[in-house]
């Protein structure tokens, strides 16, 4: 019995059945399923083969599959381009609009998101230290801080635009508010992560607060801190882009997306989204790389 579900033939035969069922229901569906399962099969084979190229090829193949499916679906079901454009159309638009997209990227990601990300994470980190240091603040500031951080972005963005103007500064402010809470929660949790014996050791040395912090608690907190930093990269992007919906100069990715939706230029909208996704993945990847370097000792990295 166990041999049955371990059988290498099980996967392919189930896949074949699914594809046949798909064709029976609808030609297009069958085709889509076939492409999907074939690509997935190749991926499984590649990633299990343990070859070094796997790490590079697999996600790309996966993405390429998604794109092919998307293109297929749009063509087979004749989806209106004002609802969802085909990837080929998006690509065509992307390569002809690089100037605009670059200007938007600088305005929104570099000026708005990144500066806000740095300030917000740094502030959350500092507050986490303060909160951790003082039981009074822990009981007083943490609940209140949680409360303030829970103010939803759609509400705070208009207010922050009103306060900080239409430029990137207000976007950075929105990002600060957005990343603050996840970073705070993770850092506070991380600062509690060291083990009792590890802390006792520091006590026997009569290590000062700062020594314990730097030599024990921060290293032990790093896995949690990176958790926060990673989640916050994507939040920062969303924050900066969404904030532009509530007022902006005539440049920026949020601005672009908004006006192009109004003009039904969905290919341009998706081009901007592609840039956002690339930027987000890049930032996230950067953080993941740093994490790998700095928390090599954590079981999750070994």
């Amino acid at each position, binding site marked *: 019995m166990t041999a049955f579900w371990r059988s290498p033939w099980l996967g392919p035969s189930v896949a074949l059945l699914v594809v046949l069922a798909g064709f029976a229901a609808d030609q297009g569906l069958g085709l889509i399923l076939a492409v999907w399962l074939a690509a997935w099969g190749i991926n499984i084979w590649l*990633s299990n083969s343990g070859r070094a190229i796997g790490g590079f090829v*697999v996600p790309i193949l996966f993405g390429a599959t998604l794109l092919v499916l998307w293109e297929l679906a749009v063509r087979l079901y004749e989806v209106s381009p004002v609802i969802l454009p085909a990837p080929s159309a998006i690509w065509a638009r992307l390569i002809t609009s690089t100037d605009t997209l670059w200007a938007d990227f600088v305005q929104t990601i570099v000026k708005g998101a990144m500066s806000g990300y740095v300030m917000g994470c740094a502030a959350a980190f500092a507050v986490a230290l303060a909160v951790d240091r003082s039981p009074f603040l822990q009981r007083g500031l943490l609940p209140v801080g949680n409360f303030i951080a829970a103010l939803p972005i759609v509400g705070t963005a208009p207010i922050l635009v009103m306060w900080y103007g239409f430029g990137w500064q207000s976007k950075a402010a929105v990002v600060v508010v957005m990343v603050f809470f996840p970073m705070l929660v993770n850092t506070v949790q991380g600062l509690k992560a060291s083990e009792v014996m590890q802390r006792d050791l520091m006590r026997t040395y009569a290590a000062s607060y700062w020594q314990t912090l730097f030599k024990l608690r921060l290293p032990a907190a790093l896995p949690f801190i990176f958790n926060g930093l990673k989640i916050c990269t994507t939040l920062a992007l969303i924050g900066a882009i969404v904030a532009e919906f509530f007022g902006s100069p005539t440049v920026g990715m949020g601005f672009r997306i908004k006006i192009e939706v109004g003009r039904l230029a969905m290919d341009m909208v998706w081009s901007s*989204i592609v840039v956002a996704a690339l930027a987000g993945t890049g930032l996230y990847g950067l953080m993941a790389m740093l994490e790998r370097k700095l928390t090599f000792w954590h079981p999750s990295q070994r």
Partner: protein
Amino acid sequence: MRAGLGGGLMRGMAGTVHHVMPILAVLGVIVALWYAASVGMNRAWTLDQAERAGEELSAGEVIADAMNQERPVLPTPHQVFAELWETTAGEPVMRERRGELRGNPRSLFFHAYQTLAPTLLGFLFGTTLGILLAIGIVHNRAMDMSVMPWAIASQTIPILAIAPMVIVVLNSIGIEGLLPKSLISAYLSFFPVVVGMVKGLRSPGAMDMDLLKTYSAGTLATLLKLRLPASVPYLFTSLKVAIAAALVGAIVAELPTGARFGLGARLLTGSYYGQTIQIWSALFMAAICAAALVALIGLAERVTLKRMGLAR
């Protein structure tokens, strides 16, 4: 016996004071800063008005006016709380309309309910999806390598941009009401769960894993007996972030559904008509909901960790 009871009571009260005092202190500082900021930001308007009317105002008059404008740049705490009070305690939650009993759009409770329902449903979807994805990622190399980058990419798509399309598409296939909103909530909340759970599920040490290997425990047993329990602290941290994100998702989703009701709609219409006091009270209601939800999860966390013997 009586003494014991009284003592217990006293200690309970002392405990409460111990917990509430710092919050009150911090709140006090914030309220004071807030008043100062209100006066600072609203003053210009008062002076502008006075100048145009050709009047001279004393400092006291300026402050009094700045704290009680009808459309202040920054409403004062008492204005916001008065509004909160009027729209909660001062309004019935339901009202009679053409023979039907319906939600009263002037009650913030009604709007909060309209937002919380999709929040919770979306949180449920998102958390479930997040945990399942994390489990897949931890167990399947192909998923690990392919899903994660695209999950990240999915999060950088500005939700406000695609929410309308999602709603339009879902509407056109006949799905409306709670579900589209919940889906957007779920979309925002699954990601923190994936990230946290992947880490958590991978957190057991080498020896803990080896032990189960010597039992030749299957994948499922390893998951249930080791990986999941070990990931619980990570799970709760993620859940706290996720539920706040779910609330934001529900609010965002209210805008492209025609901003009919819910705290998001309330925020939005408030902002179209420049009613800052309404914006702030809706904002506070949202934050109260979020804080309550986060606190609820914190409570669940403490109970769970205690029951698991992990709280020391």
